[in-house]
């Protein structure tokens, strides 16, 4: 008996590649992640069931073998994150999608992935905490993303706001992880993970896919190869290619030597990691803006909250003539301090709506304290802000 697969008829799939055909689709956020990963060339998925990320794993269990990839449900999230490391060094792009409690478990693996410069993508569908919290939406892990791993590694974290972006940002996350040889985090919320929305998939030729640089391409033979050398982003030899490459987690020299510890070597090793990501921070634009001209106030937002914020700000303009500028952070980390300072002039009040008690508010304050009179958090816990809710807080503040 042939088994019925996936969403019958809805997701039109190309006969050859088994990827979704270019055109219009209707997907759940969690499903869109998987389709994006497959387009990006990801062929290993490891995960563990956790609400509200489970649909992504279930979609992966169906779709990965269809394209010749491999899927495994591991015994816990720690194992899942470690599978990503093994698969990536085995030469294959790998993904896991989890939620906040699972994200906590993965921090050690993220830490070693940073220092070993392992490309991989972890997507956190945030839910409220602490503890079991609940299974609705939140943005409460955005600081954990930056500081959750032990040590002081740099982090790249992106924040999608729609199902279309779950597809696109997953591809972008893989591209960044391959280009900069680093784990990349995608901080999504339950709202977008579970929502269903139109997704337009462009022809595959139009989608940029980036793969890690290889020493073979640069004519570096095994005898001369330095696993963490040659360039600010080291070309990555993988296992099985005859390069005898040793994966290590201690601070190391460029050839992976860990025997000669010194504070200078320690500093040099970690500093290089930060420098590597800083180039990215300055080279990639990550802010969406609107209504900035002559604005008196500002609303800075990220993730799905930016959709509510956009509607609220537009309504404030129309109904009350209030000039509130809108800035959306598409990338949370590295925090785009310089880019923000370049576009923000003097304003009165900066509003920061978040689905937490005020987290990104802190780096925003650090960056723009001297450009405004006050910075006001608008928290909404466990549920997406409605435009009316944001506006009521704004009008109250500006009375």
């Amino acid at each position, binding site marked *: 008996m*042939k088994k019925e697969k996936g969403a019958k008829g809805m997701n*039109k799939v190309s006969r050859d590649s088994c990827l979704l055909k270019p055109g219009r689709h209707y997907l759940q956020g969690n499903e869109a992640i998987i389709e994006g990963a497959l387009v990006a060339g990801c062929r*290993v998925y490891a995960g563990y069931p956790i609400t509200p990320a489970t649909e992504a794993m279930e979609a992966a269990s*169906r779709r990965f073998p269809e394209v010749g990839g491999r899927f495994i449900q*591991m015994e816990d999230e720690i194992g899942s994150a470690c599978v990503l490391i*093994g698969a990536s060094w085995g030469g294959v792009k790998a993904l896991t999608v989890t939620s906040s409690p699972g994200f906590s478990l993965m921090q050690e693996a993220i830490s070693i992935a940073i220092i070993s410069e392992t490309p991989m993508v972890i997507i956190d569908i945030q839910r409220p905490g602490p503890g079991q919290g609940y299974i609705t939406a939140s943005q409460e892990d955005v600081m954990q993303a930056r500081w959750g791993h032990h040590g002081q590694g740099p982090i790249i974290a992106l924040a999608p706001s729609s199902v279309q972006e779950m597809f696109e940002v997953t591809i972008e996350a893989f591209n960044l992880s391959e280009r900069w040889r680093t784990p990349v985090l995608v901080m999504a919320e339950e709202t977008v993970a579970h929502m269903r929305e139109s997704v337009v998939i462009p022809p595959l030729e139009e989608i940029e896919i980036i793969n890690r640089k290889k020493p073979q391409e640069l004519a570096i033979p095994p005898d001369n190869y*330095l696993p963490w050398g040659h360039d600010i982003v080291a070309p990555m030899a993988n296992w099985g290619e005859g390069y005898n490459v040793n994966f290590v987690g*201690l601070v190391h020299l460029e050839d992976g030597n860990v025997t000669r510890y010194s504070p200078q070597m320690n500093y040099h090793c970690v500093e290089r990691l930060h420098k590597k990501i800083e180039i990215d921070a300055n080279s990639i634009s990550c802010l969406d803006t609107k209504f900035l001209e002559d604005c008196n106030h500002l609303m800075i937002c990220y993730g799905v909250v930016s959709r509510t914020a956009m509607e609220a700000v537009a309504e404030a303009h129309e109904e009350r003539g209030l000039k509130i500028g809108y800035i959306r952070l598409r990338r949370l980390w590295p925090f785009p301090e310089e880019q923000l300072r370049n576009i923000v002039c003097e304003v009165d009040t900066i509003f920061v709506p978040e689905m937490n008690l005020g987290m990104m508010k802190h780096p925003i304050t650090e960056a723009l304290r001297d450009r405004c009179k006050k910075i006001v958090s608008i928290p909404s816990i466990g549920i997406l802000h409605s435009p009316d809710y944001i506006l009521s807080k704004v009008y109250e503040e500006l009375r």
Partner: protein
Amino acid sequence: MKNHPMLKYLKAEGPMGPRLPTILCPGCGGGQVLNYTLHAVDRLISKDNIRKEDFLFISGIGCSSRITSHYLNFDSAWTIHGRALAVATGALLANPAFRVIVFTGDGDLAAIGGNHFIHACRRNINVTILCMNNGLYGMTGGQLAPTTEKGVVTTTTPYGNPEESFDLCKLAETAGAPYVARWTTAHPRQVVRSVMKGVRKRGTAFIEVLSQCPVHKKMSPVAMLKMFKDNTILIGKERESKEGKIPIGEFLDIDRPEWNDSYQKIVSQAREGDYRTHE
């Protein structure tokens, strides 16, 4: 050391400085296990024509795991505590052709790594596990391990261990490993043969090697090796302790479907499925 036949498999020098000698204490059993394993690998490369590039050594954290770190002139990974088998699972998902050898210790494998240990055996992933069992946590100073016998004094059991200990071989077999053996560092040929069998076996081969820690046991290495010879008894399948001695030998050698082999069938099935009719 200059003429040691296994030196070709070690990175004696790197551009940034020498890697040898290793950090292992004088008389540590870890060096012997590394030696025996490399002998086995050497024979597999010449006899079975296995490509050197396909060998992959993975370890966790601990003295035993240190023999992987960056000493080996193979592809290798020195990963996080207890997670070598999870990383190995990932590597095999990416490339089922790898011949994975996992170096681990009793703490790394059976305490923090316990969950991954039993699931690796259950899934029957294609790894050969060399567990150097010295009955304690060596790197951190000699603490209790899940394999420390009852009554033994360690730095965290100053009044004697109140707990029972694991029989790692029974654990591996119950969890599903198709090849299970126990030797000691005083049994070089047997370890070499078991490693060869393990690599040839499609699935999880578990080889426990009782290994001496002269520093924390406060015995000389020679005395410990003698103890290993005197206090163990070679048995077949019976496996109950005789004459108060520790049973050693090949306890199990069967065949079971290996994880990637089973999953490959799923991939074929998925690709042929009727999904494609919905276009």
